């Protein structure tokens, strides 16, 4: 299945300004094989993960608390030692070419991890230094990214004086300062207000279009649906679904429709072939599979003299899918 999509995907992701995508079409930005992790206290956080992210992709790693998202990212960025398995970043194995692999990645961690007593500007400049960027260029880059993330005015302040949302943006600026090919964000919008979240999305979309491969973890399903072409759903240390967001949605065979009725319904007549739940007197929820004819449903309804006033698609389909997948296997 996945391979079939892969060809299509490649075509989709070729942009005129990035012929390199085509030239290295077989190389993945990130390739994870059989990754396991057992923490020293015995917690099995990852039970064998296989996962690939193509160059130029925008992928979400979606999963509930404790699923293993941060552990996976920790291994890729060498903050966590793996127990077994293989990880390659742009073809560089983290066991043998760790330094090159690291230089490809920019990380925005889940928890704040900069020095709270350092100046904002210095944090970004120093990070560039660790990646070997000469000081003068580092300062230019720091200015560029702090401006893009609307933190330039605060550059001389101690980082602890920033608000939570600003701290996240600072970590994004810091992650970008060495201009990585792969940006990994661990719940970048946690605790960020809606307005800033949207502008962050806009920003991420833009840099993805400029060619940076992005992986983000999130609990916000809306976020994955809005931003990411691909979604991996992880639960209890296993990837339980992975594919194009669209395909995953299609995989959810049923769609739920909410019907508003003209008259209150005393008792629900059997509607053959449809799973119906009565929410209240005048509201029904009907699950319709993709193959089923929706006209047939209306025929059934009118035969029972039930008049439908309005109908809408139940929102957050991915959320439903997510809950279903997680509950089904969890």
């Amino acid at each position, binding site marked *: 299945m996945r391979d079939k999509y892969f060809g299509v995907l490649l075509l989709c992701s070729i942009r005129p300004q990035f012929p390199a995508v085509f030239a290295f079409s077989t190389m993945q930005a990130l390739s994870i094989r059989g990754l396991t992790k057992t*923490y*020293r206290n015995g917690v099995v956080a990852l039970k064998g993960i296989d996962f690939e992210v193509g160059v130029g992709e925008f992928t979400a790693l979606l999963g509930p608390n404790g699923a293993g998202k941060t552990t996976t990212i*920790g291994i890729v*960025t*060498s*903050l*966590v*030692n793996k127990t077994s398995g293989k990880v390659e970043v742009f073809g560089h194995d983290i066991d043998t070419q*760790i*330094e*090159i692999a*690291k*230089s490809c*990645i920019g*990380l925005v*961690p889940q*928890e*704040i*991890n*900069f*020095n*709270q007593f*350092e100046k904002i500007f*210095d944090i970004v400049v*120093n*990070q560039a*230094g*660790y*990646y*070997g*960027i*000469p*000081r003068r260029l580092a300062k230019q880059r720091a200015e560029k990214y702090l401006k893009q993330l609307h933190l330039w005015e605060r550059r001389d302040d101690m980082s602890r004086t920033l608000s939570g949302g600003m701290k996240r943006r600072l970590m994004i600026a*810091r992650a970008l300062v060495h201009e990585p090919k792969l940006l990994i964000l661990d719940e970048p919008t946690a605790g960020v207000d809606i307005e800033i979240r949207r502008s962050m999305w806009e920003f991420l979309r833009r840099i993805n279009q400029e060619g940076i491969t992005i992986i983000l973890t999130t609990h916000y399903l809306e976020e994955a649906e809005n931003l990411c072409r691909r979604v991996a759903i992880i639960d209890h240390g296993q990837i339980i679904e992975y594919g194009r967001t669209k395909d995953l949605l299609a995989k959810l065979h049923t769609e739920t429709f909410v019907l508003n009725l003209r008259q209150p319904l005393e008792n629900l007549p059997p509607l053959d072939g449809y799973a119906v739940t009565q929410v209240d007197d005048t509201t029904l929820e009907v699950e319709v599979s993709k193959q089923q004819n929706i006209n047939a449903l209306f025929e059934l309804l009118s035969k029972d003299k039930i008049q439908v006033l309005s109908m809408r698609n139940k929102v957050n389909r991915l959320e439903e899918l997510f809950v279903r997948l997680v509950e089904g296997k969890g």
Partner: protein
Amino acid sequence: MFTRFRENYIGFETIVIKEVVRVARIWVQTLVPPVIQMTLYFLIFGGLIGSQVRRIDGYTYMAFLAPGLIMMSVINNSYTNVVSSFFGAKFGRHIEELLVSPLPNYMIISGYVVGGVVRGLAVGSMVAIVALFFTHLHIAHPLITISVAVLTAILFALGGLINAIFAKKFDDVTIIPTFILTPLTYLGGVFYSIQMLPMVFSEISKVNPILYMVNAFRYGILGVSDIGIGYAYVIILLFIVALFCFSLILLHKGVGLRT
């Protein structure tokens, strides 16, 4: 290959600058206390008590004491700087900034060590200046004086780094200094010549590595020493190599840093 090294060097330089800026920024904590403490030692031990003490190797007690106190400052400050800065980075998690970067471990170690050496030598120099108010400091062998100070600073900076790697809480940062470093320093010939000790104790003292460093430094300044200078260099260098390799292994394994 060369670009790789240049990039690594930039990373190293960044750590050094950051460390030196840290020392300078919190100078009230990093530079002032040791100087005040040593000034008191000069006044009390050197001035008040020392005037009652007979000459050692032909030098006044004050002149004998000065190199010891300078060395003690170098040892304490290079150690303290690295242990507190590196543990602080672990505790505040900003050590992760370095762990995710491609900077090789030997450069991370070197960066922090140089930071410690800078503070050790800065405080040592200030204590030397204070000493000038109390006694005449004629440096007999400048090269030996400087090299012993630098090498000792490197050694204890490495010690501080290893301490910080193993430390899990703030208390762990003070355990080694309190129970090992301070006793060894006090018993390491800072305040007295081991020739003043009974035979047994002067022999026991010779297993204390700090004795060799203090004496080598005193030899550099006064030209007298209880022990052979060659020994001192061999011991210091052996310790440096051993501690450097040990910290490389620890960082490679990610002890105390990676889960």
